[in-house]
C-alpha cells in the first residue's frame, strides 16, 4: 500500500465532525492530491491549513506562495510535472488567478481550484459568505473557453465533490472550479469517510511517442515534463504538436473549438442535479450551495401544506445543465432562484425556460431563512 493509502486507511468507515473546508481538503487527499500551492485568504484558509498539516503525511508537498498569481502558476507547473495539484482561495484571490485559469484551460492542464465564495465586490465583507462568483467562475478569464464548476451544499458533499473534481480534471484535461461558499466552508457536520481502497486515483492517459498531446482527439493524452517527449506547452495558439502558430485562423479555430466542444458536448454527462418533489410541481425553486438548504426547507414546508412546490439543486453549475433543466421545468408556472448575490444563476436559467424566472437575491453576508423563500414561494403557488 502507498504511504497515502496506508495513512488514510485508518479513517475507513469512521465519522468525524469537521468543517466544509476541512472536508474539501481531506477529499483532495483521497483523490490523490500531492501538490498544494496557496496563499491565505478568509474564508478559504482552513483548506490550506489542513493541507499543510496532512499533505506531507501522505507524501505530498504543501507550498505557501507569495501571492495567488504564484499559487495558481505553481499548481499548473506541478500538474505538468506529474502532480495532482490544487489551490484554494476566495473571490479576491480567484480574481487574481484568472489569467492562469485561462492558461490552464488553453494548455489543458488538469487541476482543481477551490473558491470559497465571500461577499464582494472587492474586499466587501471579507468574513461573510456569498455566492457572487458564479459568473466569475464561468467568464473570469478572457476569451472563448468552457469550464467545469461543482458546488457542494454540505460537509459530506464537500468531501465527495472534491474527489469528483479531481476525477473530472483528469477525464477532461481541464481546470475544475470547486465553487463552495463561506457558509458551507465553515459550518461543521459529520463526515463519513469511505474506505480508501474504494477511492481510486483518477488515471492520467499519457501520450506515446509521436502522438499529439494537444489535438487529434477531443481529450488528447498528456505528455508530461520528464516523459522524454520534448513537450512544448504554451498558452499561445498552437498546433496539435504544441508548437505555436498564432497567425492561422484554421489552427486557432480548430484548437479553441475543440477545447470548448470537449466540455460543451459532455454537458449531459456533466449534468449533476439534486431533484426532489418535482412530481406534479407547479412552482420550482432552483438553488445551489448553502442557499439550497433553506430552499429545501421551504419546498418541504409547502409540500407539507399540500402545495405543489418542487426543488432542484445545481450540484454541477458549469457547464450549465440547461437542456435538462428545460425538461424538468417544462410544466411549471414559475421558477424561484434564491441566491446570495443580486442574481447570476437566474440569468442563465432564463435562457432555457419559458416560464417566468423570479430572482430572490440576498446580499449582506447572511443566508436566506426558510421563511424568506417560503413567503414568495407560497405567494406564487397561490397566484396560479
Amino acid at each position, binding site marked *: 500500500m502507498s*504511504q497515502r493509502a*496506508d*495513512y*488514510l*486507511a*485508518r*479513517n475507513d468507515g*469512521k465519522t*468525524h465532525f*469537521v468543517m466544509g473546508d476541512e472536508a474539501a481538503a*481531506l477529499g483532495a*487527499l483521497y483523490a490523490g492530491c*500531492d*501538490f498544494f*500551492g496557496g496563499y491565505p485568504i478568509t474564508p478559504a484558509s482552513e483548506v490550506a491549513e489542513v493541507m499543510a498539516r*496532512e499533505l*506531507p*503525511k*501522505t*507524501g*505530498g*508537498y504543501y*507550498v505557501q*506562495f*507569495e*501571492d495567488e*498569481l*504564484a*499559487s495558481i*502558476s*505553481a*499548481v*499548473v*507547473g*506541478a*500538474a*505538468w*510535472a*506529474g*502532480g495532482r*495539484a490544487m489551490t484554494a482561495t476566495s473571490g479576491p484571490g480567484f480574481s487574481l488567478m484568472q*489569467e*492562469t485559469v485561462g*492558461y490552464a484551460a488553453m494548455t489543458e492542464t488538469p487541476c482543481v481550484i477551490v473558491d470559497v465564495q465571500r461577499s464582494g465586490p472587492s474586499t466587501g465583507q471579507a468574513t461573510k459568505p456569498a455566492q457572487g462568483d458564479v459568473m466569475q467562475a464561468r467568464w473570469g478569464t478572457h476569451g472563448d473557453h468552457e469550464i467545469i464548476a461543482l458546488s457542494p451544499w454540505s460537509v459530506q458533499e464537500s468531501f465527495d465533490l472534491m474527489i469528483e473534481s479531481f476525477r473530472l480534471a483528469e477525464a477532461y484535461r481541464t481546470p475544475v472550479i470547486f465553487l463552495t461558499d463561506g457558509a458551507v466552508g465553515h459550518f461543521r457536520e459529520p463526515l463519513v469517510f469511505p474506505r480508501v481502497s474504494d477511492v481510486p486515483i483518477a488515471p492520467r492517459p499519457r501520450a506515446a511517442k509521436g502522438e499529439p498531446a494537444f489535438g487529434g482527439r477531443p481529450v488528447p493524452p498528456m505528455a508530461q*515534463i*520528464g*516523459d*522524454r*517527449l*520534448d*513537450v*512544448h*506547452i*504554451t*498558452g*499561445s495558439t498552437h498546433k496539435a504538436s504544441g*508548437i*505555436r502558430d498564432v497567425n492561422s485562423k484554421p489552427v486557432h479555430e480548430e484548437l479553441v473549438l475543440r477545447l470548448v466542444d470537449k466540455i460543451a458536448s459532455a454537458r449531459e454527462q456533466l449534468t449533476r442535479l439534486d431533484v426532489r418533489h418535482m412530481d406534479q410541481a407547479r412552482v420550482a425553486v432552483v438553488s445551489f450551495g448553502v442557499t439550497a438548504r433553506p430552499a429545501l426547507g421551504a419546498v418541504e414546508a409547502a409540500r407539507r401544506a399540500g402545495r405543489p412546490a418542487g426543488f432542484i439543486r445545481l450540484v454541477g453549475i458549469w457547464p450549465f445543465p440547461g437542456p435538462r433543466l428545460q425538461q424538468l421545468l417544462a410544466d411549471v408556472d414559475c421558477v424561484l432562484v434564491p441566491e446570495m448575490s443580486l442574481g447570476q444563476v437566474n440569468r442563465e436559467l432564463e435562457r432555457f425556460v419559458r416560464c417566468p424566472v423570479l430572482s430572490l437575491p440576498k446580499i449582506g453576508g447572511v443566508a436566506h431563512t426558510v421563511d424568506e423563500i417560503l413567503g414568495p414561494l407560497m405567494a406564487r403557488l397561490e397566484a396560479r
Partner: protein
Amino acid sequence: MSASETKSNPLRRYVRPGLLPTIFCAGCGGGTVLNCFCRAVDELELDPRSMVMVTGIGCSSWIPSPYFLADTLHTTHGRAIAFATGVRVMTSGMKVVVIAGDGDISGIGGNHLIHAARRNVDLTVFMVNNSIYGMTGGQVAPTTPLDVTTTTTPHGNVEPPFDVASLVAAAGGTYVARWTTYHVFDLVKSMKAALTHEGFSFIEIVSPCTTSYAKAVGKRSAADFLADYKERSVRISSAQKMSPEELEGRIVVGALKRVEGAPEFCQRLRGLTRRVSAEALSTREGAR
C-alpha cells in the same frame, strides 16, 4: 551561415528541428544567448531530456521556446519562476531553467523573483536584459536608464533602473552573476557554473535590442552595442576598488555572489515530507 554550415554545427542537435531561422531581429542578442546556452549544455554534457525550460512572455522568452529541444513550459507574463517552482518541487533529477526578459522577470514578475531567491529554490534563471519592452514596441522598462526616450517616455525616463543582480543577491540568491553578450566565453563559463550550482542561480545577461532600444539610444547596429558593452563593462574585482562616482554608467560584470552549500528549498521540503510521513505512519491517529 549557409544551410550546410548550419547542418554541420555540432550545437544544432540542441535546437528543435524545423524552426530555424529564428524570429529574432538582425543583431538581437537572443541568438547569442541561445548559442552560449547550447554551448554550456554541451560542455557540461547535460542531457536536454533531463532539462525543463520555463519561459514567460516577451522576446527573450522565445530564446528557449521553441528553439531549445527540451520539455518546455511557456507560461503567462511574469510567472515563469512561479511555474518553475511547481515543476521543480514535483520533479527530481531534472534541471529547471528559466530564460526570460527583464520586463518579465524584474517588472511584472519581480515578486516571484525575490521570493524564489529568498527560498533558494534550485532554479537556474537567465534574465536577458535589453533595457526595454521590445516585443510590444519599445516601451520603458524597470531596467531602462534615466532620461532615455522610449515610446512611453517621449520626454525622457524619470525613473532610475533596477540593479536586478544586486536585488537577487540581497534577496537570497546563492549564485548571482552579470555578463553581457560581448563576453561570450565568460558567459558560457558562468552559465555552466549556474547550471551546476545547487540553489537559486541567476545571471543577468545584458543584451542588445537592435530594433527598439537601438532607436531609443541612437545606436545603429549590434556592433555599436557590443563596442559599448566592451567599453563600459568593468570586472567585479576592479569594481570593488572603485567609487560610486567612478562606477556611474559602468556595467559591473562577473560573479557577484557565490555561496555553496546553503540549504535548498526542495531538499528542505522533501526532508519535511519524509519526516512527517514517517511520523504519521508510526502513530495510530488518522487524518482529522
